[in-house]
């Protein structure tokens, strides 16, 4: 399986009935829990002010008696039994400054925050129960206000943002599913053209048809996790296959690529092309019933480019066609699609969105300017410029995933 994506959730391709009615799973199963702290004294911030705060439905925020500005640690103590999430937020705007996720009953964990002058409150979100907001606390101005340079928050506090909820993510995710659904017929017909060329033994035509079909698939990057096993079958590499390129488990686009660019007769590749054509049809027929995990879209917005850097810019996935840059361009198109759909959520949350757009545009230009050469044929200067563009882009995209993580607010 090629599968590069860090896919936290269970296989979400469900062949259930009632395709129109979308039932959203609780996304929490995919959240990695941080290991509990061994204790407040061992949190590693001995020089900072510490405040013990109670996290529980009955006493949310209790213990915050001496508010002060600046960098500080709240030692959050879940005095209840059920696991809780906790935020420190601006109650007027709902902007969250700090978060602890999955605080186990009885556990204490530190939360490092920088507070500016202003009003704050704790919000306690017990599992399966409504959220409770603690008393609003006024933090006075003071010396601590000086260190928050570059923060997105007024008054010298750390950066804060309104959480994105599952409800927020449903429209863009549905829109993305719909967009993918609209792309699939093109993929199926492009693979049919490829399959036909392979079937009649025309290697030149098959090589020519391989790239557009492959790119049709590579544009769908944000959905791969939802494709499940089919993704490995359609676009897997030799990774994990004991037999390498001759392993029977090596199938799909890259198997065809290897054959077509290594002198295998097109005729001998017939079964591979047949299987690929069948796989993309299966994908298409199942897609209507698929449910993407709502957290996928934000994650993929940066993971697609991470994988481009890891697999395309290094030539790892090049089995002979030398089309890594074209794949990279297709990946950028997929990223742009995901980003566009998230835009309504990001516009109010990420002041740096214009810079992200600019970086995406610059990277697209950089790739386009290089033409269709194999990555291995680039000069050092070209490689450096390309890597810089992608490196800059992926650094700027990373916060999209952080901001678009699924969170509760109620």
């Amino acid at each position, binding site marked *: 399986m090629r599968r590069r994506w860090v896919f936290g959730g269970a296989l979400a391709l469900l062949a259930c009935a009632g395709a129109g009615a979308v039932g959203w799973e609780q996304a929490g199963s995919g959240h990695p829990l941080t290991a509990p702290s061994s204790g407040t004294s061992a*949190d*590693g*911030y001995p*020089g*900072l002010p510490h405040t013990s705060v109670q996290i529980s439905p009955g006493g949310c925020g209790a213990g915050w008696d001496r508010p002060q500005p600046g*960098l500080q640690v709240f030692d959050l103590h879940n005095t209840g039994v059920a696991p809780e999430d906790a935020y420190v937020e601006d109650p007027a705007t709902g902007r*969250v*400054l*700090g*978060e602890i996720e999955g605080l186990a009953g009885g556990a204490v964990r530190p939360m*490092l*925050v*920088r507070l500016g002058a202003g009003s704050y409150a704790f919000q306690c979100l017990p599992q399966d129960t409504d959220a409770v907001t603690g008393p609003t606390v006024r933090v006075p101005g003071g010396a601590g206000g000086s*260190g*928050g340079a570059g*923060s*997105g928050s007024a008054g010298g506090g*750390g*950066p*804060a*943002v309104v*959480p994105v909820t599952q409800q927020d993510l449903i429209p863009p995710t549905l829109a993305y599913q719909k967009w993918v659904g609209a792309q699939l017929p093109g993929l199926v017909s492009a693979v049919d053209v490829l399959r036909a060329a392979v079937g009649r033994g025309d290697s030149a035509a098959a090589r020519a048809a391989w790239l557009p079909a492959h790119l049709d698939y590579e544009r769908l990057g944000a959905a791969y996790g939802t494709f499940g096993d089919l993704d490995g079958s359609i676009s897997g590499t030799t990774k994990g296959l004991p037999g390498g390129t001759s392993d029977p488990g090596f199938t799909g686009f890259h198997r065809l690529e290897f054959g077509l660019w290594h002198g295998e007769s097109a005729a001998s590749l017939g079964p591979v092309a047949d299987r690929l054509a069948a796989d993309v049809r299966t994908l298409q027929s199942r897609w209507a019933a698929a449910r993407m995990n709502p957290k996928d879209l934000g994650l993929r917005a940066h993971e697609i480019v991470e994988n481009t850097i890891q697999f395309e810019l290094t030539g790892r996935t090049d089995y002979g066609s030398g089309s890594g840059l074209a794949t990279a361009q297709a990946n950028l198109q997929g990223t742009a699609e995901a980003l566009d759909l998230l835009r309504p959520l990001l516009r109010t949350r990420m002041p740096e969105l214009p810079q992200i757009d600019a*970086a995406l545009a610059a990277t697209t230009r950089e790739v386009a300017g290089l033409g269709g050469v194999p990555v291995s044929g680039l000069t*050092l*200067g070209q490689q*450096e*410029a390309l*890597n*810089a*563009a992608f*490196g*800059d*882009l*992926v*650094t700027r995209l*990373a*916060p999209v*995933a*952080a*901001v678009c*993580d699924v*969170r509760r607010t109620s």
Partner: protein
Amino acid sequence: MTGLGSGVDRRSVLRGALAVGAVGATATGAAADPAATATATATATATATVAPASTDASAGGGFPFHGVHQSGVLTPKQRCVSLVAFDVTAADRAGLSALMRTLTERLRFLTEGGVPEPLGITAPPSDSGVLGPVVPDDVLTVAVAAGSSLFDARFGLAALKPRRLRPMEAFADDDLDPAWCQGDLLLQVEAANADRVAHALRDVAAHTRGAMQVRWRIDGFSSPPRPAGTPRNLLGFRDGTANPDVSDARAMDQVVWVCAGQGEPAWATGGSYLAVRLIRMLVEFWDRVSLNEQERMFGRQKNSGAPLDGRSESDAPRYSADPAGDVIPMDSHMRLANPRTAGSDALRMLRRGFNYDRGTDGNGNLDMGLLFCSFQQDLDRQFVAVQKRLAGEPLVDYVTPFGGGYFFVLPGVRDATDWLGRGLLG
């Protein structure tokens, strides 16, 4: 055991040296004359003063980030080093300035330590956490230097290029691989432990990905004294003996720092030329050479580091008593590099090399060697002149210089509002 006190002493001594350097810089116009330099430094002690820091140079033992000069030149060699050459990919001069400001900000924080800013739910953590929740303030030095290519047409800096800066020429016995040579910028990152170096590099990379790209990188280490004296290289000989005294500010203004009145661009005052030579040592071949032959190649005794006519490392060789090289061969490394004749003090430079060990080559031979680094105020008068004197020395059969370059160490960052390269770009 040197204890904490030694770290404090070293630091205050260095602070003194740096402070004096500022004053000296205005008064050393006359010292540009090599003869004057020679006289002034003739009595400089032969005792190596660039010793490796003891590993307990921690607990607030770091060097100040702000100063007339950058750290990493006169400061004691740390155990771990990473030499990383970058090419600037920023599109224009504004982009380069932004890069240098970012670099300065990050290095200031990394050097001084502190709590990485919490970014809450808006971004991934601002720090890798490799050093734990708080970045310590123990020793981290990062010297930033510019290569000649930074002064090409891209950024409009051609007229401001330090006079001697150029791509490193291939010397007679070099086998240079372009992939391991040059670079627009060079970072020499040092710390007592490898994780501190790795952490710094990760932080710098994360903040500069779009503006510069790694061209080459090699890691090295400085050995502890075995059993005492100057640390040994991987040929088993002490390396750095007879360095000038870094606590002698006047000597440093004559050997290391570019001073006003030397014909260099004004911004370059307080900087230094850095020659980097990546030198593979054919250590297995070397181990099959007799001790006598090894010692005659260096001109020193392997065990003690003493000249072949002396008893201890700090003894000066008496070439006048050995005019034909019967004891210390005329073509020995030491004698060629510094014949200790009138005027040869002008050749002196500050050598500050590290060893490297990077596994094996394609044939399974051990790939070890020397990251030669020397700092000087005049590349030609010092490093190049010495290198030319060494052409054809017997030692060349056992070493292969394969990379490196010439760089110019930027003047120091004066204060919280200053930034690396401000004099050049601001």
